[in-house]
């Protein structure tokens, strides 16, 4: 058994010590024993439980459900809880959020007209969701964000103007299940054929109509 690292092997400060032939033979002996030592370790792993699993078709449940709650995946916003305070937009270091709040001239009510998140730019840092006092903006455990064009990475959460929430922090409608809003907004790139288990590129769809208003 070769010792663990800290103990230096005696008399081996350099291989030129002693007769060259002896040192040479010693080197060969040590090399071969230590190789078999290493091979023994590798071999022993043949009889241990493998650490890998086959992704994505041989797992019991989707990875999204295995991730811990605090995982910082793709962002989603529950517009029914959003107060339109724009704290998140101001907190974001790279300006990925684009929120437009308009006022209805007649009823004086305020509406969230646009709530776009540019996940192509987002670095998933979590500063925006920490700034939100209303649990409206949160990270999901979704992480599969590949898309066929940059435009698809701009997520439009407000497809029509939504009145701002007037609830105090901690009240208001219950938060919809994490990920459910995002799944409506983000279209899967691939769909799985249930019968054959093969993934197909999802049919191209017309891009969602941009929120009305054309200020840019």
């Amino acid at each position: 058994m070769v010792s663990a690292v800290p103990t230096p092997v005696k008399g081996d400060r350099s291989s030129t010590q002693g007769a060259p032939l002896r040192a040479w033979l010693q080197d060969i002996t040590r090399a071969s024993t230590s190789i078999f030592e290493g091979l023994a370790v590798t071999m022993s792993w043949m009889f241990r439980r493998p650490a890998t699993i086959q992704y994505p078709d041989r797992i019991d449940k989707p990875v999204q459900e295995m991730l811990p709650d605090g995982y910082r995946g793709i962002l989603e916003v529950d517009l029914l809880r959003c107060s339109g305070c724009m704290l998140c937009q101001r907190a974001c270091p790279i300006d990925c959020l684009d929120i437009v709040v308009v006022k209805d001239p007649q009823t004086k009510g305020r509406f969230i007209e646009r709530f776009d998140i540019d996940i192509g730019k987002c670095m998933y840092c979590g500063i925006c969701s920490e700034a939100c006092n209303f649990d409206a903006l949160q990270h999901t455990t979704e992480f599969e964000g590949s898309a066929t064009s940059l435009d698809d990475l701009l997520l439009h959460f407000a497809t029509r103007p939504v009145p701002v929430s007037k609830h105090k922090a901690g009240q208001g409608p219950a938060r919809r299940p994490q990920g459910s809003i995002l799944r409506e907004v983000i279209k899967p790139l691939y769909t799985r054929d249930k019968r054959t288990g093969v993934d197909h590129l999802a049919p191209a769809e017309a891009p969602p109509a941009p929120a009305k208003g054309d200020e840019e």
Partner: protein
Amino acid sequence: MTPTEIHQRLLEVFGPDDILGLEAELIDPVIVVRPGALRAVATHLRDAPELAMDFLRLLTGLDRPDAFEVVYHLFSYPKRHSVGLRARLDREAPTVDSVWDIWRTAEWHERETWDLVGITFTGHPDLRRLMMPDDWVGHPLRKDYQKPSVYHSIPTTRPKPSSQAPTHVFPPAEHVAKAEVEGEWMQVNMGPHHPATHGVINFLLETDGEIIRRARPDVGYLHRGLEKLAEITPYGNTMPYTDRVDYLGSMFTNHGWAMAVEKLVNVQVPPRAEYCRVIASELNRIASHQIATGALAMDIGAYTPFIHWLRERETINDIMEIVCGARLTYNYMRVGGVARDIKQPTLDRILTWLDHFEPMIDEFDRLISNNEIFIKRLANVSTISAEEAVSFGLVGPNLRASGVDWDIRRDEPYSVYGDLEFKVIVGQGLRGSVGDAYDRFVCRVLEIRESVKILRQACLNIPEGEVQGKVPRDLKPTANEVYARVEGARGENGFYIVADGQKQPYRVRYRTGSFTGMSIIEHLSPGLMVADLVALIGSLDVVAPEVDR
């Protein structure tokens, strides 16, 4: 000696004409020197036995409204004192004498400063651009710098996707790898996409057969201008950017940034948060050293150990996912605390994992560390003496492997490292000479064991309480300068912040271990075999984004 005493000493030797004053009101005081006397003062600081400032931590170029400044952060390993040195230069033609032969690490620092701030260093042997391409115009870190809208037909801004027309034109292929035979030697490009360079780095090799005459690292491919970005981002929001300084050790850069800002705004961190920081940092250190040692073995042909380390690192990633929500860019720390508490179940999981992990280190040693072929391959390769290591500004395991007994965690304790017990690993020349590639490898493996010890103590002793201290809503420190450092996986991670009373810093400079690690390669390369260069790069554990920032 305190900075005041050093100032007194310099005044006695040089007189008030050369030593213009001491800025003692700064958190980390700075001595102002007349630029013409800089070389004499620097030589005296290094050579006078009672000063012995042998380590140039950081060289910074500053663009002030009335002058350009060069700031040298100096430290003495024998005397354990530090001070800053400042030279004010003329705005029109900022020129100062080079100190590259006094502290060899200045060679690259000066190149970078010339490149980004446009300060000329007379006497520098090779004052070329370091980060920016050679045909770049202007000096990006100057305050009046206007960035061009396109560079080789690549736009430098990204419009919002919805308003973007698909007009991407590829630049003309100019940088084609070339191998030209000139007389007896040949020039070969190794990189920028070479598996052994650990990221996008190009090495220009001048080789004579298998023997290298010179290897010149060409860095800057991953230069993202993080220092410039920090100048336009509020203090608190820079945290996620510091993740990107060193993606294998984001906890340390988080920690250093948090400490620097806390010093500036004078914020107290609750004890539990300090313990959380230490736990997260040590987990990160294990993960980072695993990549370093595993990748070194892989680079010189042993693939299996790397995979074994990745398997263990996976658990660290899972724990990190629970602790901070991400696997690589942690963004865990906040000014005045940490983002989330580490709950008891997670602490238990860490402890259980440590019980499993320790035998795995033994297994790794049996697998590779004691492998005679591996040892023969690394022993006596690229030996770095202690003087060289200090002069080139090597830090962390690379410095300790050369026999310098210095660890910021023990010698200038920050956070709660003072209360924890661990050994500082110093290279002993186990199978070759002190400071060879095998020593650097062994140092890292042994440091993993020490981190395990620290983690055990921290997980068991963590006190109850808050994890976020009281922090003003708007971080707006008054004009001041601070230099904070932590012991990262690749050595000293320094953060130099110049505040001017705004919400954003005036100037930020990151001091990273890989930058100085990279700068020693050209010096060590003559006479190496090409295959040994790979071992040298791997054993220095350079991470490309950390070089470029």
